[in-house]
């Protein structure tokens, strides 16, 4: 009986316990759909998702930190309102919809970037430093970076505005420092908070890329998850969710620890 081979005849709690026990020894079981070990599929997918999420967060940070600082210096002015408006749109756009729109524009209408997949047909390994491969990354990264752009911009704006309101900035001005030097101080004080948010966003993207990966058929954990849901491939589903949760929690923990290390005031 198939049921017996997979242990489905036992109560769910027992099944879960057995599965957890095996996971601790590194055995995630076999995929029901492909018959291959879950670990093998999972870790290949994980590498692909990390590439995507890291790329998106770095891209988002480079843009958002600049415009966020810009807005933080001009709180209340029209340019600040424009930036805040962009940030609101960033967090409000359904990214799966943006993915479709980007595909329509760049793949269908302009035909300059590939719509789906990872690397040209027949290529064995993915090399992001080669243009032929790299162009497959562009649209997914733009799509995924949208929400982090919105959130990091908001955080930077309020962090910079807050630092500018502190007395030490006034002191620096009184000492006759150049605005550029003051900017350096402001950035240094605002940065830890922004980096923490950036780290959190990385965790979110790792777990939340399912929709975007599905649209771009990017072979990462999200795509794997979607396939597993459709085929009811339980071992893959469980294993992927567990690993993603562990990554998410670990990221948050590391950020917490780093933050207390940087800013001793947070220690109670």
């Amino acid at each position, binding site marked *: 009986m198939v049921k017996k081979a997979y242990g489905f005849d036992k109560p769910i709690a027992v099944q879960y316990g057995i599965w957890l026990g095996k996971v601790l020894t590194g055995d995630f079981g076999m995929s029901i759909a492909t018959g291959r070990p879950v670990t093998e599929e999972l870790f290949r997918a994980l590498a692909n998702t990390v590439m995507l999420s890291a790329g998106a967060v770095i891209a988002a940070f480079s843009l958002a930190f600049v415009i966020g600082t810009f807005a933080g210096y001009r709180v209340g002015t029209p340019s600040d309102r424009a930036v805040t408006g962009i940030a609101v749109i960033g967090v409000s756009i359904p990214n799966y*919809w943006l993915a*479709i729109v980007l595909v329509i524009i760049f793949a269908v209408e302009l035909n300059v970037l590939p719509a789906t997949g990872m690397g040209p047909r027949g290529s064995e390994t993915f090399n992001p430093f080669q243009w032929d491969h790299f162009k497959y990354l562009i649209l997914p990264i733009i799509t995924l970076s949208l929400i982090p752009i919105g959130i990091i911009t908001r955080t930077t704006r309020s962090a910079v505005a807050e630092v500018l309101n502190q007395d030490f900035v006034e002191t620096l001005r009184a000492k006759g420092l150049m605005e550029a030097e003051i900017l350096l101080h402001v950035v240094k004080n605002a940065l830890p908070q922004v980096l923490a948010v950036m780290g959190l966003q990385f965790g979110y993207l790792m777990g939340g890329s399912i929709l975007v990966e599905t649209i771009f058929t990017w072979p990462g954990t999200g795509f794997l998850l979607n396939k597993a849901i459709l085929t009811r491939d339980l071992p893959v589903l469980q294993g992927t969710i567990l690993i993603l949760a562990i990554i998410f929690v670990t990221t948050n923990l590391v950020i917490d620890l780093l933050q207390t290390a940087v800013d001793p005031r947070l220690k109670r």
Partner: protein
Amino acid sequence: MSDATVNNLQPKASEVAPALKVRSYWQTVGYRLRYDYMTLFFGFVVILIILSAIFAPLLAPMDPYQSSMLNRLKPIGYKDFILGTDELGRDILSRILYGGRISLTMGILPVFIATVIGGLLGIIAGFVGGRTNMTIMRIMDVFYAFPSILLAVAISGALGGGIFNGMMSLTLVFIPPLCRVAETATSQVRNLDFVEAARATGASTFSIIRVHILGNVLGPILIYSSSLVSVSILIASGLSFLGLGVTPPEPDWGLMLNTLRQAIYIQPVICALPGVAILVTSICFNLVSDGLRSAMDVRM
């Protein structure tokens, strides 16, 4: 002490103060909102969107389920199809109007239920403290191990598709963060002297929560839950997009986006339309929530 001394000590009931128009907290918030034209405008749009979903049967020019093999994937303005037709020849405008009913319900109802349940749990945890707090908050922490989309997908995946299961999973996703917000707000208020003073009058726990705690924590909870509506709409249509929420042939914005995706090479503009509906709704809810936040940020 003689009567004369007593009379001297009797304070005169006349501390100098002009008669002020006294406004309660919520009146102040309303007053501030009345002059926030941005928020008023987007609030108006939100109401318009909700009304058009409610009155979809009156507004929709056609039957949203009526398919036609002849009129498949027609462009905007083709014949009577103001926004064109989908892959089964159904009128897109009618389907977007009807789709609002499901998409908005899936956006608002889970947040509402989660606000009630999560808020209540948070208030209890924050007020009672001790072991009760530990138990409730540690259970909530388990859910924090997952990003919200992943959690929604995982729960829906486990429960199976369908509108009801989709809403259920969204509710479960939103309970922990709301519980945490309520708990934080409550434990801050709980340590203030007026709660201690209320206990000193011999008031029951229930009375203290109802009279003294609720009025002080409702603001932060409502601000937070209003910001969740747009998140909920996005995740709900995301679930439908993955085939985990609404099932065909029901009209739903996320599901429409999914089925139309096959046609991007034929009618690219039409394929993007349901997404515009999601985007506009989500932006409006976000901006209204922002306006509410700044209006409620009164130091009192």
